[in-house]
């Protein structure tokens, strides 16, 4: 691969106007912060929605103060209707998966740090970069607009299964304009993600500075690169799927709607579509999306953990190999979401095998992280705690995958809270722990100030214990057959399980409240935190060889040359116990 001098591609001068500097900026660092800001707004919206849902599940008749102001129809007197519960659930899932778990670990931190970590001055296509953010922002506005249309947000879940999502208002409230906005928003989001993915791939392949071979790239950069490749293929399928859905809804086509359906006493004017086609297209995107959410966090933890363990990551080549293997296998497993969907039962066995196989690279990654902690001289700052917490919740979320990967067990557990527990642990909580670790770790570089470590530790402990109190009991509910996506539990066998739901609700409210500590810490430290040095954590990658925050061109006109891998900790015979990637010193022994 030809190595290009970074200055050759840095084509835009420092902006001078406020608009070009802070709003329509071409600077990858500003765009990274914009993505982070959007994810931050989105995560608090999503979290408040989950609070409302949890309160309703624990105490269905309890009026929630102010909820009727948000929707007088959806929550008359503050008590939400069943359809409004489903609306909040749909919006919670959609906002969290797309605007938080895709944006924060990948688009936000990737944008900010991928170019710096490879010694480039910017992304390969700065204008595409700006467009990808503002496209994503537009998608968010369109999605939020669904709260304010007359029939309310859609009720078909974040998976928008057809024909519920395709036939329009006859299927129920929220399925007219609300569902249109959902489909349009996701289509726009796909465009933004495709632009971003292309940019990440081109930047990684073309803009590495002298000496930054692929094997010397930090693990976070590897993870963002692999994630970009996954995104490119995944969103390229979801986009046409959304367009077909929009056509079914607005142009009278029948891609996803079978003949002879009767809704609201109307024989639907559609013929010949396939309900399962939507599921195949959606999950061809949907399962790789799980890895779009989690791989960046794996890379982030693999980068940060050695910094605080003061020793190299165990098995660096195996780590990269496993990330690539996961990315490759992620395209062969979508059918495990469809074991009971009515697809050919023989295919269940075929989809089960690669699904189980994917646990091998995932297990190796986990073992390598645990092995890295062995014999370390651990510095227990907030980023380290969140990395260790990540390993714990990744184990918890990963092992339940063994159950759901088997059709013979999925036949009992599918559609229950066991699934909710599994994907929240492995995809949401683990990914968010990676984001928290990244935030505490890179905040000094991004804003030039340190975050408060004591508040960070309080945040960690309350969150770590909280997420176990929320999601571990959901496994038990799933084993008892507690169906998910119910707005109330009226079945005879579900009523005895309501106390468990009350416990989960209390845990969710407390854990959510703990996030306010994080928010306060972010805002307070931005203005009042102690000034950060260039390399406060004694880390090796290139972002720590420049000022905090970095100048507009990242390295103040210097053309970085890389001499070391990213993993040079516990180095002997050096002034420090580590060797920076930009350091030309020869490492003798370890």
């Amino acid at each position, binding site marked *: 691969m030809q190595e290009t001098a970074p200055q050759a591609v840095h084509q835009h001068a420092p902006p001078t106007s406020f608009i070009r500097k802070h709003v329509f900026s071409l600077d990858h660092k500003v765009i990274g912060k914009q993505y982070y800001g959007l994810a931050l707004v989105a995560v608090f919206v999503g979290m408040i929605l989950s609070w409302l849902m949890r309160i309703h599940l624990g105490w269905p008749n309890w009026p929630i103060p102010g909820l009727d102001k948000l929707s007088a129809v959806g929550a008359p007197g503050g008590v939400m209707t069943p359809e409004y519960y*489903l609306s909040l659930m749909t919006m919670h899932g959609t906002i969290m998966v797309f605007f938080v778990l895709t944006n924060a670990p990948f688009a936000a931190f990737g944008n900010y740090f991928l170019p710096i970590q490879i010694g480039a001055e910017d992304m390969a296509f700065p204008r595409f970069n700006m467009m990808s953010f503002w496209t994503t922002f537009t998608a968010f506005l369109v999605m939020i607009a669904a709260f304010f249309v007359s029939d309310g947000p859609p009720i078909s879940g974040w998976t928008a299964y057809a024909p519920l999502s395709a036939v329009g208002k006859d299927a129920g409230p929220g399925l007219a304009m609300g569902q249109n906005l959902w489909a349009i928003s996701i289509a726009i989001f796909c465009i933004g993600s495709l632009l971003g993915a292309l940019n990440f791939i081109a930047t990684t392949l073309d803009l590495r500075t002298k000496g930054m071979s692929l094997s010397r790239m930090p693990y976070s950069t590897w993870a963002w690169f692999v994630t970009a490749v996954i995104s490119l293929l995944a969103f390229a399928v979801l986009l046409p799927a959304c367009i077909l859905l929009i056509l079914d809804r607005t142009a009278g086509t029948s891609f996803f709607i079978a003949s002879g359906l009767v809704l609201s006493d109307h024989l639907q004017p559609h013929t010949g579509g396939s309900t399962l086609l939507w599921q195949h297209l959606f999950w061809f995107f949907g399962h790789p999306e799980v890895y779009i959410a989690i791989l960046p966090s794996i890379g982030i933890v693999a980068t940060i953990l050695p910094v605080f363990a003061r020793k190299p990551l165990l098995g660096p080549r195996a780590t990269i190999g496993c990330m690539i293997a996961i990315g490759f296998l992620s395209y062969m497993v979508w059918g495990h979401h469809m074991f009971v969907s*009515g697809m050919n039962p023989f295919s269940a066995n075929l989809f089960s095998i690669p699904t189980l196989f994917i646990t091998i690279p995932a297990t190796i990654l986990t073992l390598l992280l645990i092995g890295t902690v062995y014999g*370390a001289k651990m510095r227990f700052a907030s980023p380290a705690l969140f990395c260790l917490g990540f390993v714990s919740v990744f184990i918890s979320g990963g092992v339940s995958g063994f159950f759901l990967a088997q059709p013979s067990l999925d036949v009992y557990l599918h559609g229950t809270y066991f699934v909710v527990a599994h994907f929240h642990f492995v995809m949401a909580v683990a990914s968010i722990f990676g984001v928290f670790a990244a935030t505490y770790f890179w905040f000094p570089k991004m804003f030039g100030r340190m975050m408060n470590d004591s508040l960070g530790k309080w945040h960690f402990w309350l969150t770590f214990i909280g997420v176990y109190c929320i999601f571990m009991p959901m496994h038990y509910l799933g084993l008892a057959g507690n169906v998910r996506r119910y707005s109330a539990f009226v079945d005879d066998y579900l009523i005895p399980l309501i106390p468990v739901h009350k416990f989960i609700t209390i845990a969710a409210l407390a854990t959510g409240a703990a996030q306010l500590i994080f928010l306060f810490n972010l805002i307070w430290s931005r203005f009042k935190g102690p000034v950060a040095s260039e390399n406060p954590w004694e880390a090796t990658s290139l972002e720590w060889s420049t000022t905090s925050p970095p100048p507009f061109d990242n390295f103040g006109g210097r053309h970085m040359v890389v001499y070391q891998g990213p993993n040079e900790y516990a180095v002997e015979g050096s002034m420090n116990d580590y060797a920076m990637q930009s350091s030309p010193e020869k490492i003798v022994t370890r």
Partner: protein
Amino acid sequence: MGKLFAAAVFVITIVSVAFFVMHTWWLPIDISTTGPAIDHQMDETMIGVGILFLAGQLVLAAFVWGSSNASSGKKIKIFPGGATPLVAGAIILVGLEILTLTLVGSKAWGAIYIAPPAENSQQIDVQAEQFAFYFRYPGPDGQFGALHPDKIDDGSGNYFGLDPANDIAARDDVVVGSLTIPVNTPIWLKLHSKDVGHSFYVRELRVQQDFVPGLEIPLHFTATQTGKFEIVCTQLCGLGHYNMKAYLEVVSQDDFQQWLKTQAGQ
């Protein structure tokens, strides 16, 4: 701080496992011929995965505990043997676990979904709609009437879209709102949806199957115990999803024949 983390992971792990071991919340009784294989598979997986979970969490806790003891003069230690034994161990152990689960589990799956239904099965049509299940039995003629979606009319009780005026086979079809089946008799359901996706889930039968609009989905099982059980919908189908349910009544063969006669006479 490291010791606190290790202790927290230890307590969380033990408490989590305890509820699984004590079966505080667990699967209900199994009443189907295919259920024991599934329950066996569940137990096997629970043990294998439980060991992985315990080992992963406790080793993490132990290593973190150890790493917090490091005094400033202490040398960093690299994992014995490096990454290779971990990678090899993961491939062999998890690989074996996967092969075992796949070989055993595919039999349990095949018994429900791949094996053809028995010749002498009691056939029952099921129609799912927002937000109810309806069940149709062939009357004394042993034949089902044809379905005509344009004739579906909930108001007059024509949930399946039968055309008794022109279709003799449809005239004696029995349509009811709960599923009554004879014990120890193979049952062959044919699932239809009137409108959107639904699902048929009976915990005690260990079966779950989606209704797919536009397709007829077969499902077969044999109940081994009499009793009354809940059928619930597990596929999001709209605002009344939470309340979409019916009852399954498993009765003796004689009671079933008597029940069917009574229904046909009405």
